[in-house]
């Protein structure tokens, strides 16, 4: 193989990697931003609400939180790409934080979202006399498992 070919291939590979990197920077956050526009609301004007939910919404809730698991990974990847080539302790801290974010944020959001969704499903299917207990469980699930700092 000619040297020039190697260089050209290498350049192509590098360009491809650079393109992927740019994609990695934007795709994950973009999708998460868009999809979160349709995230079921727990907060209205800053107040936590647990209104009656209809079955279709429950399905979307569960689906959303399944979809978000890899998407949060992509958001983490975007952050990681910003830090990947950076040397020094600060970048290392950032990389460790990205790892923690990717694991814990995604995990607990999934647990919270799925758990809440399933509980809501349970509440919908449960006789009225047992509903208060389910609602309390719902709230506890949101409080304990939510990855956000938004606890009540």
């Amino acid at each position, binding site marked *: 193989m000619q040297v020039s070919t190697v260089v050209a291939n290498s350049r192509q590979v590098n360009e491809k990697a650079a393109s992927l990197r740019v994609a990695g920077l934007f795709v994950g956050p973009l999708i998460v931003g868009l999809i979160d526009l349709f995230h079921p609301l727990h907060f209205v004007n800053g107040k936590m609400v647990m209104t009656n939910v209809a079955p279709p919404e429950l399905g979307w809730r569960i689906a959303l939180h399944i979809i978000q698991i890899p998407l949060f990974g992509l958001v983490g990847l975007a952050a990681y790409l*910003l830090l990947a080539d950076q040397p020094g302790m*600060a*970048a290392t*801290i950032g990389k460790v934080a990205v*790892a923690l974010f990717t694991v814990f944020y995604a995990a607990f959001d999934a647990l919270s979202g799925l758990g809440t969704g399933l509980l809501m499903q349970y509440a919908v299917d449960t006789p009225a006399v047992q509903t208060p207990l389910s609602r309390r469980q719902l709230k506890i699930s949101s409080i304990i498992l939510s*990855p956000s700092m938004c606890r009540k």
Partner: protein
Amino acid sequence: MSEVGALAWVVTMLTVAAIYAHLRVPSWIFAVLGAGTLVYCSFGTNRLFGSLVWWIGIAAIVLIMALTTRQPLLTALLTIAAIFFSTTHEPPYGPLAMLGFLLAVALIKFGGAWSKRQPASNSLPELRPNQFIRVIAYAPIGASVYLQTEAVISATTLRRSAPWLYPLAMAGVLLLLYQQSASVSVGAGQGDEAALGNFYAPQHDNGRDYRWSKYESNITLARISDAEHITLTLSGARPTPAPPAASEIWVDGSYVTTISLTNQIADYSFDYHDLSLDPRLTITLRPTATFYLSDQDYRAVGVIYYAARAESNAAFGLLLPPPSLALLWLLLIVAVGGLLPAAYSPRVRFAAYLVLPLFALLIWIGGPLEGLPLSGAITLLLLPLSAFVQRAPLETWLARGAGWLRGWRIWHVWLVHAVAVPLFYLIATIIFTWPYILDLPRRVPGWPMDNFNFLYKIWWVGNALFGNPPPGSSLTYNPNVFYPAGFNLAQGELTPANTLATIPTTAIFGPIVSYNLLVLLSFVVSGWGMYLLVRYLLDAPPLTPTPPRYGGGSLGQQGGTNPALIGSTTQNSKLKTQNSTLIALLAGLAFAFCPYRMTQMGGHLQMLGTEWLPLTFLFLEKMVRRRRWQDGLIGGIFFALCCWEAWYYAAIIGLFVPLYLALRWWQLRRAGQQVGINPAPTPNPPIGAQSIAPSTGGINHAPTNIRYPQLKTLLAFIVAVAIMVGPFALPYLQLRDTGSLAYSEQLANQNSAVPTDYFLPSELHPLWGETFMQLHRWQNPLEDNLYLGVVPLGLFGFALAGWRRERRQAASPLANFPFMPYLLISALAFVLSFGLGFHIGVLFDKLKVGGSDPNATLWLPGWLLYKFVPLFSAIRAYARFGLIVTLAVIVLAALGLAMLLARPRFAPYRRLTIVALTIVLLCDFAANPYAFGMSRVESQPLDVWLAAQVGNTPVTMFPTDYAQLSGPAMWSSVYHGKPITYGYESFLPALFQRPDVAQPLASFPNDQRVWPLLQGWGIKYVLVATYWWGTGWPKMRDQLAVNPHLRYITHFQERRLWDGNVRLWTSWPDFAWHAQPEDVWIYQLLPD
């Protein structure tokens, strides 16, 4: 754990901002602000989420973070992404966060930051390697702060674990933080003036700045650890061949080593370790000799200084913070910890949220600690531990400890009062004055002046009794000082409480140890006395209506206490002040270590004898409550001991004793009449008396008969005072006939206080003392440091505000507290401390507002005392009335604290509040290292020379202004044993006040009358102290060289006795002549 992901996201975003947006501020500031951001978001999200306030806070945070970097837009976007996505990813927050993140990425990628990133040089422009570890610390600290406060405020599952887990984790992080190798250095250039003291102006040679030292020069570095490795770059160059230069090295007033210098520039290193509270490390160069660079250069120079560097040095493998920082942590932790209980109230919870991060930010940005390396740890530890401090575990522990103490007290009451409490104050004294306890045989506190006078008196009394006193001497008279008049110790303070009490210790250990033991014991007994006083006042049975016995009068009798004024036993047993023991302990600490006493420690041994004052007031109270003649007798003894300490106290306290007795007798009599208590028991109840007033519940408005018991008590008091004080008053009465023992009005007024003295923080404080020392610079440094302290003042204010309501509560155990007498006493003493006339202009000068006539004088009650009341004309410092103010304010502060703790909402925090107040008080009153320094007690070369001279011929010293104002000069006679024509005392003997003697001596050598005078006294050696003459000394030296009456013999350079802070000279230049070692020239007086 569920929040780990959210926290990690914030850390990620802020790290990206730090890397790409190029920090404008030091990295630690950015990190702390980041942590603050996290805290605010957490709190805000929980409590204020979505509200207008929340949005305003977010906007402010974004703005602040943006301003910390050179690319504010990028930082703002990343901060928005951090805040919103960590809060929740629901709309609109999640999408907005992602929008911010995408825009930030776009800026980085397409705005140039991406392409410009240079891993080696551009990635972290402000972060230095040893600061990275801080960045690690900040994020968990933010989390910790959040979790801690949240755990305290709300009932969550973290509540149990977090208080222990996070402080421990943070302690580990902090310890890790301190393992970095920090260092500070100071050069010799133009910009280093602030850290250099008493050097000559900078010079430049061979590319380096340097400065010549003087006979003593000092370099101030920030103290960065508890152990330092110090390197000095010096040169001992000399213009001509000379012996190798050498210099003593002192650190913080303590001798460390002597180094021999070469002519070359070289580094000299040594290790230093101590537990000083001073945040500064003062290195003092004391060259063993100075010289002149040339005939034209009149600078007496020592060695050449180039640079100084201090590095933290690991002790036991760990770097520990300096004590000053540790103390501040504690102070601030407690201060913030005190805020947290308020956070339980929903009304002020929001304020608490804001106060916590703001407090941290204020410390960082505006505090005086900015210049201290590693001071960041203050904030790091502050907030998480604040939650810990006020948490249940500590309180539980305290409660358990107190419970144990209670059980113990039941069986060993006397042990607690007589052993445990004094032991507590002894330990407190040792710690508070550390390392004074190590100096007992060697040094005395303060610069060399009055302390040597008292040292001399202690020595003299021991010598007069058991030594070899000269003929004609007595216990109070030494013919060899102020020769030929002799030294009557009554020319000043006889202070028998000090001189007589130490006869045994002087005989065994010598006068220096005796002196220092007196100082230490004064702290212990002062604290103990105040403890007993406050405890008695708080626990004394209240005056309450009682069921009738024998008809009209009620005679509830209880355990040997006042049979007349004790009410119903059943009711009173429930009326007990909560935590009176701890309150009394706190009051004792406040009194023992108050700035007045700490200042007087600098040399006024007699004024330090305040221990009998609270005991006197204790028995005054007992006298009026119990009316037993034994109480009068003991009270009289304690008052006599006050007089034995100082005549000042005889006058000052003596003024208030009758006032207090009169007020209390009147008050209790009135109270007794109101509640129907007839103090005079009726041994045989009249038949049918029960029917007289059964329906009044024991209330009886019949006049009381209390004259006889009071008279007996008072008589016992007077007899005790007369017997004890009388003999020691006789020498003074004799002296009054022979000479004046009074000060002029001007002098008497000179050392008076101004109102601000009570409120300006202590000039002795290791951190801010120098600042306030500047405000006292026109006053006497030993007289006007009357600061009352933020804790006593605050509690005093509380007592003032709440007393009216408290008094009206019939069930209050404090209803009979002598509030009004102490208030009146404090007010009167407050006014009297201003002296004879109040120079209004002085106050304005002090406050630096100007515009007032400095001569405007408002005549005060002190003038009447001075004119018409015996003893008061002999008072030089009316500011000493401040002691009474201090005592009264502390007593009323104890009342205020008792009232405060009686409130139900304080029930869970009583002990904790006392502990917190104690820590704040001690931090406020801190005086370590002692700003007035220590003085070594040792002989000088001159003393050795004089001792070696044959014969017992008298010695004189000039100028008399120096000789008669130098304690060490008088003390030197202990070593050489020659009679001296000078001495150091409040009043001069009558002989030396006569114009025909005083004037020739003062005009030496120009007044020709001095020569026959000296010859008539048989003087052989004339000593001339040169420093006093200042720049006029060469001329005087030449004049004395040709004087036909004198023959030069030799001269001696004395060693410096004072180990203190030369920065004092800035405030009081007069210190210099006390601190400077004298160069004494010796002449022989020739016969005509």
